[in-house]
C-alpha cells in the first residue's frame, strides 16, 4: 500500500492550490490524483480572460492561470498521477485508485483533500421534452470540443440558461462564425456575471430572453429547431408565447452540481442546498482529516475565490498532519437568514480561525441597496452596505477572530435588510 501524508483528489485549480499550500506549510509527502491527461482541470478549456484579478492583479486566461500553479507545483517537486481515477475513499482514509500504469492502488493518506470540482447539469437533469437528436450539448462540453479538440459543434445555435459558461460560449460560437439566435433564461434574472452579459451578449447583439423556457426540441437525427416560450411567475409556460427557432445546435447552461459521488460513498455529510460537503472553518468535512475545497464544496463564480478557499484547505490539512487543529473546540453553526441561500463554512471553531474568518454566501434573489448584517447569537457584529446583489455573484464577509467570542451552541447568522428599514 502506498503511503502519503496528504492525498489531493483532483488536479484542477482547487487541488493545485491546496497541494502547494500544504507543502508551503511543511508537509512534504503529497500526492495529487488527476483523472484527465493533464493538470489544470476545466481552466484548460476556459481560454477567455478575466481570471486572476484578485490573486495576481492581472487579467489572465484560464490556461495561463492554470499554468502558473502547475509550474509552481512541479518546481516544488509535488508528486502527481495523471490518467488516474480515484474510485473510493474507504475506512481509515485509504483511497482506492486506478490507472493503466500502476493498475489498482490502495493509498493510505494522513489527510485527504477533496477537490473534484463540479459537473454540468444535462438535458436529463432538467427533463426537456421533445425528440433526442444529435446537436444537444452542455455548454462546457461544447467549450472543450471547440477550444481544445478543435471541433466546431454547430452553425445555428440556441442557448438555454444564462450561466457564465453559456454566455461565454455565445460569444465563442459567434467569433467562430456560428449564429447564436437566442439565449433563454427561466428566471427573471441572469445566472451569470453582469460583465458577461455585456461583453458576450450585448457586444454581439445576441438577444437574452428572461423568464423563458424551452418547450420542445425538434429533429430526428440532428436538431432541426427548438421552441421557446415565456413563463409566468410560477415558471409555467404561457400558452401563445411560443417562438420557433430553426437551429442545428442547442447548448445547455443550466447549472453545475458539485461532483460528490466519492464523498457520498465515503459517508461524508452533504448540504442539500450547495450539494457539497458540510465543512468547518478549516474546510474539514464531517469525517476527521478529510478536507474539501473549490467547486466540490459549492459552485464558485471566480477561480480566484477557489484558490483562496483551497489554500485554506491545504494549510489546514497541513496543520492537521502536524496535530495543530483542535477537534473538540467550541463550535458555532452558521445559519442563512433573510435573503441568503447558504453560507460556507457551516460550522466555526474560533480557536482554529487563523486571523480572520471568511464567510462565503449567495443571495436568493436580485437586490438593490441592502445592508448585509452578520449577527452572533442575535447581536450584530458586522454590517456592510451592498448596492447590488444577485444570485450569480458570490458574496463574502470577513470577520475578525476577536469578534467571535461566544458560549456553547452559538449561531452566526447573515441576513439582508433594506437600507433605511
Amino acid at each position, binding site marked *: 500500500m502506498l503511503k502519503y501524508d496528504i492525498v489531493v483528489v483532483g488536479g484542477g485549480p482547487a487541488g493545485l492550490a491546496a497541494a502547494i499550500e500544504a507543502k508551503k506549510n511543511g508537509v512534504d509527502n503529497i500526492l495529487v490524483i488527476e483523472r484527465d491527461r493533464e493538470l489544470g482541470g476545466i481552466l484548460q478549456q476556459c481560454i477567455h480572460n478575466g481570471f486572476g484579478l484578485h490573486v495576481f492583479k492581472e487579467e489572465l486566461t*484560464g*490556461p*495561463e492561470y*492554470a499554468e502558473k500553479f502547475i509550474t509552481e507545483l512541479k518546481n516544488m517537486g509535488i508528486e502527481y498521477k495523471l490518467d488516474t481515477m480515484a474510485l473510493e475513499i474507504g475506512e481509515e482514509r485509504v483511497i482506492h485508485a486506478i490507472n493503466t500504469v500502476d493498475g489498482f492502488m490502495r493509498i493510505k493518506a494522513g489527510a485527504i483533500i477533496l477537490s473534484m470540482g463540479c459537473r454540468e447539469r444535462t438535458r436529463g437533469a432538467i427533463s426537456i421534452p421533445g425528440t433526442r437528436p444529435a446537436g444537444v450539448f452542455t455548454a462546457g462540453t461544447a467549450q472543450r470540443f471547440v477550444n481544445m479538440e478543435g471541433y466546431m459543434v454547430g452553425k445555428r445555435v440556441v442557448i438555454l440558461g444564462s450561466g457564465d459558461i453559456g454566455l461565454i460560449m455565445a460569444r465563442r460560437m459567434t467569433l467562430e462564425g456560428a449564429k447564436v439566435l437566442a439565449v433563454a433564461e427561466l428566471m427573471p434574472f441572469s445566472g451569470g456575471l453582469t*460583465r458577461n452579459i455585456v461583453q458576450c451578449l450585448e457586444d454581439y447583439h445576441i438577444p437574452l430572453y428572461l423568464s423563458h423556457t424551452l418547450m420542445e426540441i425538434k429533429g430526428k437525427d440532428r436538431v432541426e429547431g427548438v421552441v421557446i416560450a415565456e413563463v409566468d411567475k410560477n415558471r409555467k409556460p404561457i400558452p401563445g408565447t411560443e417562438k420557433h427557432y430553426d437551429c442545428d445546435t442547442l447548448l445547455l447552461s443550466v447549472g453545475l452540481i458539485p461532483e460528490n459521488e466519492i464523498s457520498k460513498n465515503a459517508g461524508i455529510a452533504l448540504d442539500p442546498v450547495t450539494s457539497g460537503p458540510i465543512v468547518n472553518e478549516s474546510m474539514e468535512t464531517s469525517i476527521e482529516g478529510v478536507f474539501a475545497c473549490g467547486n466540490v464544496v459549492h459552485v464558485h463564480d471566480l477561480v480566484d475565490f477557489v484558490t483562496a478557499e483551497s489554500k485554506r484547505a491545504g494549510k489546514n490539512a497541513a496543520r492537521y498532519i502536524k496535530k495543530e487543529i483542535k477537534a473538540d473546540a467550541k463550535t458555532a453553526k452558521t445559519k442563512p437568514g433573510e435573503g441568503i441561500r447558504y453560507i460556507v463554512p457551516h460550522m466555526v471553531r474560533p480557536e482554529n480561525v487563523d486571523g480572520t474568518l471568511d464567510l462565503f454566501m449567495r443571495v436568493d434573489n436580485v437586490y438593490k441597496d441592502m445592508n448585509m448584517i452578520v449577527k452572533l447569537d442575535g447581536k450584530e457584529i458586522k454590517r456592510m452596505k451592498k448596492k447590488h446583489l444577485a444570485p450569480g455573484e458570490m458574496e463574502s464577509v470577513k470577520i475578525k477572530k476577536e469578534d467571535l467570542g461566544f458560549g456553547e451552541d452559538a449561531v452566526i447568522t447573515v441576513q439582508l435588510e433594506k437600507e433605511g428599514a
Partner: protein
Amino acid sequence: MEKHQLVCIVCPMGCYLEVTKENEEYNVTGNKCPRGKAYGMKELTNPTRVVTTTVKIKGGLLNRLPVKTKEAIPKEKIFECMKFIDSIEVKAPISVGDIIVKDLLGTGVDLVASRSM
C-alpha cells in the same frame, strides 16, 4: 448633457457606471476603482476588447493552442482578426507568452500563446 448607463467589464465586480458628457468632457460615476473610470470613457470614445481564441497546432498534446491579443484591440476589428487568425498554424513546442503574430493586422497588438504546449 448626454447620459449613458454602463456596466463596467474591467473586473468581475461589474460596477454600474453612469457616464455623462458635457462640453466634450466625460464624467464617470459609480466606479469603485480608477480602471472603471478609464473604461467608462473609453467605451464611449473607442471601445476595445481583448480577443481570446485558438490556433491550429501540430505535434502538441491537443489540436488547438489557446491564444490572446496581448492588449485590447478595437471592437470593430474583431471579426477581421478572427478571420486572419483562422489561417494560422503553429508547431509544438510553444511556451506561454510566445508571440504567434506580431502586430496583428496593424493594430499594434501582438497575438500571443496563452499556454505552453
